[in-house]
């Protein structure tokens, strides 16, 4: 049976997300997947204590990931982009640095992830929206 390009992409993204779950749980986080946030969905939300880290995972379209991260600024303490490229471009590194986002490189084959850039604390959280998110997240099971 033939496998379509979108199915291959989806499977590949699923491997990236799988790698991220192991990566964050290994660092002591609890992880939720596909967390709805104001009409879009964060691929991974890792929580430790009261801190929330939102992650947008992409195989290669990092500009789209950066756009998606914008909405998370109202609710997330830390925001990251996870990308499954062999090497990270200087442009991505610079844009992530400017925005204060973390950068995680994932090897989809080995499902291994590593930090390229640690995120800065996001100071743009709007508490009323954050409270709504926290209430909604209670209905979502942990993936780990």
């Amino acid at each position: 049976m033939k496998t379509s390009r979108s199915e291959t992409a989806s499977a590949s993204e699923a491997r990236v997300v799988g790698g991220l779950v192991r990566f964050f749980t290994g660092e002591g986080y609890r992880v939720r997947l596909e967390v709805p946030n104001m009409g879009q969905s964060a691929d991974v939300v890792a929580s430790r204590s009261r801190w929330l880290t939102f992650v947008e995972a992409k195989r290669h379209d990092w500009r789209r990931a950066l756009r998606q991260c914008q909405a998370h600024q109202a609710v997330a303490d830390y925001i990251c982009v996870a990308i499954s490229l062999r090497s990270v471009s200087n442009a991505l590194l610079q844009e992530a640095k400017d925005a204060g986002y973390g950068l995680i490189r994932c090897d989809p084959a080995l499902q291994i992830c590593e930090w390229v850039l640690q995120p800065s604390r996001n100071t743009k959280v709007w508490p009323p929206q954050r409270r709504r998110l926290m209430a909604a997240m209670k209905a979502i099971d942990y993936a780990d």
Partner: protein
Amino acid sequence: MPIDHWMMFSTFAEQRHFEYPEKGTYQGVVINANMAAYAPAGLAAFLLEKTATATYIIDPLTHAFQHDPEAICNSEGEPKSSIKGLAEAYGEPISTLVGSRPLLPKHFEDRKVLGAFTERCVEFQLDHLRSFMKEADAAKYVDDEIKPPYAVVVPYFFLTETTYADWLPICIDAAKQTCANVGDGGGPKVFTAVVVSQGILLDDSAQEAISDGFSSAALDGYLLWVDDLDEKSASKGELAGLLKLARRLRADGRREVINLHGGYFSILAAGVLGKSALSGVTHAPEFGEFRSVVPVGGGIPIARYYIPSLHTRVRYRDALRMFTAKDSLHSAASFHEGVCDCEKCKEVLANDAANFTLFGESTVKSVRRKHGIARIEFPTTEAKRRCLCHYLQKKRIEYQFAETASDKQLLSDLDSGIQAYQDVAGLEGVAHLQRWKDTLTA
């Protein structure tokens, strides 16, 4: 000059909004003929009960039959019920073709066929809803005779740069016939609909052919609809083309031109700044400021907030990002001062800026997708209603402002939007205001 404020009927769930913010806000209601064919009793009651002070126009939607039949068929490949009802009312050649083949100019080669079709199409608009209105319970409370539509709309077809030469003569002949039969004074006005592709806006000779062609018929006015023209992303050339086409059709104010799907640019064009290039502008309760001639799927609904200074609707999350960056959500007072002080926003915020979240309130549902179950967020009915009421409040104010303010005030308002939002929306996020200003002052 007053700007006629029309609203498009979409669904019965939205009918209460035709009296919002208050009775008499709208000059009239535009109803699609397929709705009139499908739910005449409901529409008759709606017109009698909800729009007693307003008038109505039935868009005959004749263009629907010229596209790929797939556009008017359901998932089983059958014509949608509402379209089927309309096709039956209009008769030949449509009743034979509907759902299987598109209507072509050659089907009207015999002008007797066009004549009979035009007659039935006009008769449908004059009589179909009125007969149900006469029978409706609410008719007991109407003192006057049941009103005919404000205008009958001649059968019309979608004109593109490549097809207008074929369709235009048919539209003109139908217009002349209707003017001769209906436009004898005392009855409803006679309009035609000029429904064109965006390419026509950039094609001067096509515009000239259309306006000159229709000028030979004794029409009272036009419904104007440019396919999927989002005024926010339209180029200066397209906006200038829209103005030019509207002014040509308007014939120095002798004919009405109502933009069937228009935003704030069209409102400005209809007002002082545009020197009444349009006589009226229509939108729908749920936005409808631009629409594709061939319907496209709706996608997942999302909460959108209308930003008054940008005169545009943005996703709730983008509005929130901009307002927090501008520190407009610091307090309710800062929100009302910096963003919106309409009655709805005051009611929703209730002196607490945190209540702005109510505009983005949502519920999460699990939806089966190709690769498993996905969690999708849907705005709550209440959140949609809040966004909608705020939008309708601001729309009414926009019409009044464009009608009564001076050129200087109107231009200054556009400048204020640019200044207030360029730091948070970027230059591209405010560029439409500059394009509107440049076009209207050229």
